C-alpha cells in the first residue's frame, strides 16, 4: 500500500530562517508592490488606522435653496 510522506510534515529548522516586521500596508490585498517587504523596527510604534471619512449627507428636497428642480 502506498505510504504518504507524513514525516515531511514538520516545522522547518529555525536556524535557516530569518524574520522581520513589515508595514501593515501588506494587510491590504490591493497593495502589491516590492516595498512591502521593507523591514521596520520591531518596536516601531503602531500607526493608527486612518479614520473613516464621513460622506457628506445629501440634502433633502426641503433643504434645497428654494429652486425648483428641472423635473419638479
Amino acid at each position, binding site marked *: 500500500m*502506498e*505510504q*504518504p*510522506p*507524513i514525516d*515531511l*510534515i*514538520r*516545522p*522547518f*529548522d*529555525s536556524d*535557516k*530562517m*530569518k*524574520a*522581520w*516586521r*513589515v*508595514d*501593515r500596508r*501588506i*494587510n491590504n*490585498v490591493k*497593495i*502589491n*508592490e*516590492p516595498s*512591502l*517587504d521593507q*523591514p521596520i523596527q520591531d518596536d516601531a510604534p*503602531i500607526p493608527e488606522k486612518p479614520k473613516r471619512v464621513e460622506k457628506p449627507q445629501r440634502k433633502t428636497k426641503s433643504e434645497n435653496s428654494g429652486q425648483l428642480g428641472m423635473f419638479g
Partner: protein
Amino acid sequence: MCGRYQRRADKQRIAEAFQLGNVDGLALEFVPDYNAAPQSMQPVIVWDKQFGTRSLYMMFWRFLPPYVTDPKKFKLDTINAKGETLLDGNTWRYAFLHYRCLVPVDSFIEWKRIDPKTKLPWMFAMKDDELFALAGVYRRWRSPDRKSEMDTFAIITTEPNELLAEKTGHDRMPVIIKRSDYQRWLEPETWNSLPSI
C-alpha cells in the same frame, strides 16, 4: 495559518530552482506577486505522471473538494490544510495521497496579535534569500454540469518552529519542504521503490 506570501521569482527562476527544464514554450504568464492572497491564481508545481517531469500550473488558492456543488456557498476555510489531520475525513485524504504540490515562495507572512483589534505582520524567509517551497495539496474542481472546472490548492500547516513562535506567538506555520525532499513529496510512487530498511 498561512494566509499571505510573496513570490518575487519569475517563471525562469522558478524553472531553475525546481528543475522544471525548458519553460520558454510554456503558455503560462505571471508576474511577481508581492502580496499573494487567498482566492487568487498562483503558480504551483506538480508531478506530471504522463511525462515524468515536474510541471508548473496556475491554480486557485482555495481548495475545493469534488463534493462542492457551489463554491460561493461552500463556507469551510480551505486555504490551509492542517497537517496532523490530512488522513482524516473526506476533504483532504485523497488529495494528500495522490495530489501533492509545491508552492514556490520567497517569503511568507504571519501576524502577531497585539490586542483583539490589532495584528502586526512579520515576514519569514530563508537566510540565504533562496526561493523555497511550501507543501500543498490540490484537486481539480468541476461544476455539477461539467461546464466549468478549476485546479485548486491549499497550503499545509504544522506547529510553529521556535523563530515563528517567538516573533508572533502564533500556533501554526506552513510546512516547508527541503530541496532534497521535493521529489518524494511530489511523486507518490517513489516511496514504493525505496529499499526496505
